[in-house]
């Protein structure tokens, strides 16, 4: 026990001796939260719209007016040829163009229907999808208006209308949604990188040779190595939550105890992975490379940036093995929805199994002699 305490003390001395470590540990959550939470915002505003109006009628200008009035669209220009509009898209000055045919108003009045063309730059698929959806909604709205005018009140309404309201995040606030997830990344980064790098560093500079000929037991060394980072990562989480609360007004609907309880378990998994990586590598460079490989996959498939539900089925199966996905979900469930212990029971059991498997493998693979 005394030995473990002493190793831990030594680790803390070494970690904080490095001048950048302490500031970095506290700056990291602030910087990451502020930059990422603002940048990782899916709401698309200021879509640049180009108009090709061949009709120049009362109706067509009303439609253009509706687009101008929308917060989502910026009308950046207009022309009479679709080629000009296409060039605008090519140059990146416009994201989409709306082409109104010459007989738009006449057809609407005479044939009770007319065609419109929307051409969307789909290089950025997410933005294109949203632009398309927003534009369609505006056109539909316009459609209803003119039907009401032409056929009398009530006629324009479709027989069934859907009104939606967003639960647990009523204003669809992206900060509320993103910040808990970003905190997961932060904790994962600290757990997986710092722990893995730390042990490999001992290998790289040869200090492990000297340690291995001492009576230090395997478990003492491993606990002594991992515990400091477990503590630091938990402190990061606490600090990050505080920042999230102060700056982003993140709701704390559920129990914080539950969040930290799960984090404690989750960190065992992440630290175990770091430890395992350190047992299969010889240099910090190798460890870094492997850690990044896993981290990128874990993060991109965590449901933080793209919903897991919209992934193809095979990818959804893969996310079942992604610890980051579990923690992101738990953070959102507990903080935003107020889920209790029983609601995240499955997550806890999976993490428990994961922690035992990963750490078991890492300890088994750690050798004091070759």
């Amino acid at each position: 026990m005394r030995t473990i305490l002493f190793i831990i003390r030594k680790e803390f001395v070494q970690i904080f001796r490095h001048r950048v470590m302490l500031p970095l540990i506290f700056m990291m959550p602030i910087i990451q939260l502020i930059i990422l939470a603002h940048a990782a915002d899916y709401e698309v505003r200021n879509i640049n719209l180009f108009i090709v109006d061949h009709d120049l009628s009362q109706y067509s200008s009303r439609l253009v007016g509706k687009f101008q009035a929308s917060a989502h669209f910026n009308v950046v220009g207009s022309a009479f040829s679709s080629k000009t509009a296409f060039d605008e898209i090519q140059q990146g000055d416009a994201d989409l163009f709306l082409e109104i045919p010459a007989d738009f108003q006449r057809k609407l009045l005479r044939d009770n229907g007319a065609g419109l063309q929307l051409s969307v730059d789909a290089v950025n698929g997410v933005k294109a999808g949203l632009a398309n959806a927003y534009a369609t909604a505006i056109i539909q709205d316009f459609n209803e208006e003119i039907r009401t005018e032409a056929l009398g009140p009530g006629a324009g309404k479709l027989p069934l209308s859907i009104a939606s309201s967003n639960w647990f995040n009523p204003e669809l606030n992206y900060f509320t949604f993103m910040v808990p997830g970003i905190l997961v990344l932060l904790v994962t980064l600290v757990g997986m990188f710092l722990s893995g790098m730390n042990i490999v560093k001992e290998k790289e500079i040869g200090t492990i040779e000297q340690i291995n000929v001492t009576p230090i037991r395997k478990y003492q060394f491993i606990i002594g190595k991992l515990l400091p980072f477990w503590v630091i990562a938990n402190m990061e989480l606490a600090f990050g939550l505080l920042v999230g609360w102060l700056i982003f007004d993140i709701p704390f609907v559920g129990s914080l105890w539950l969040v930290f309880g799960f984090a404690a378990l989750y960190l065992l998994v992440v630290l175990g992975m770091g430890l395992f990586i350190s047992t299969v590598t010889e240099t910090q460079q190798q460890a870094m490379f492997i850690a990044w490989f896993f981290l990128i996959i874990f993060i991109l498939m965590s449901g933080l940036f793209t919903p897991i539900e919209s992934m193809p089925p095979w990818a959804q199966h893969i996310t079942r093995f992604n610890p980051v996905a579990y923690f992101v979900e738990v953070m959102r469930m507990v903080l935003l929805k107020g889920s209790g212990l029983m609601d995240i029971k499955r997550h806890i059991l999976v993490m428990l199994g994961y922690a035992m498997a990963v750490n078991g493998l890492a300890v088994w693979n750690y050798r004091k002699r070759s």
Partner: protein
Amino acid sequence: MSNQFAIDIQGVSKRYGKDVQALDEVSLQVRPGELFGLIGPDGAGKTTLIRILATLLLADEGQATVDGWDVRKDYKQIRRNVGYMPGRFSLYQDLSVEENLTFFATIFGTTIRENYDLIRDIYGQLEPFRTRKAGKLSGGMKQKLALSCALIHKPSVLFLDEPTTGVDAVSRHEFWEMLQRLRQKGITILVSTPYMDEASLCERVALIQKGRILSIDTPANIVGSFDKPLLAIRTDDMYRLINDLRQFESTHSAYPFGDYVHLALDGPIWAEAVHAYLVGKEHTGIEIKPAEVTIEDSFMELMSKE
């Protein structure tokens, strides 16, 4: 298991992969309290042997005991009772001198004060710098710190793997004096070195090459086993000199030795005959003198017999 030897190695072999035979049935015994030298060029297998004895590496074949403990089964006892100083500086560079020493004392369940007697000579010189980070020490001071850390738990056997490699001549000399004093305190010391001149400072040495022991004896006996006349020769054209001497009919061996070429001869040949031969080969500035046999000459001789 009782054993009269502090270190007893019987037929130890170790391979790395398919091609590298690092150790080939090595056997040697070190008596308690002995200062034993493992002498050989780089890649001879010195480090491998020490790592096996320090329980860092498992031998493929053979048996070895340290202080009577088997390196394979009783590694826990060995780790508690030996000191090991790896060839590469292996202390925490970002910890201070004192923090390093305290750390190693603590993990052995002791304190600096408890065993201060043993390291007084060595650590005493470091104490003025005890708050300095280990990474900022000079080579000689690093080596003293490493030795202090290896000694802090009062080991009965000390393994030193090339402790003087990369250390200046003065520090090397000091270091060997420290080893002599440690020996007087009853600690068995196994030290490896590529420097032949350090062999004479050991009580007994083993000459090792390509994983095999060539000879185990006292330095004096190893030198004494060299039974050929030996000349030190110098001329203005040293490169041509070696080639010419190797073609001389009575030459047993010729190899560079400092500023001279050492020439071992088969049978009693006068220096005048060699001189005449070299004059015939148009050498100028010829200097020939009888050479005192050193352990390096013996080693070259043993190597050439292999």
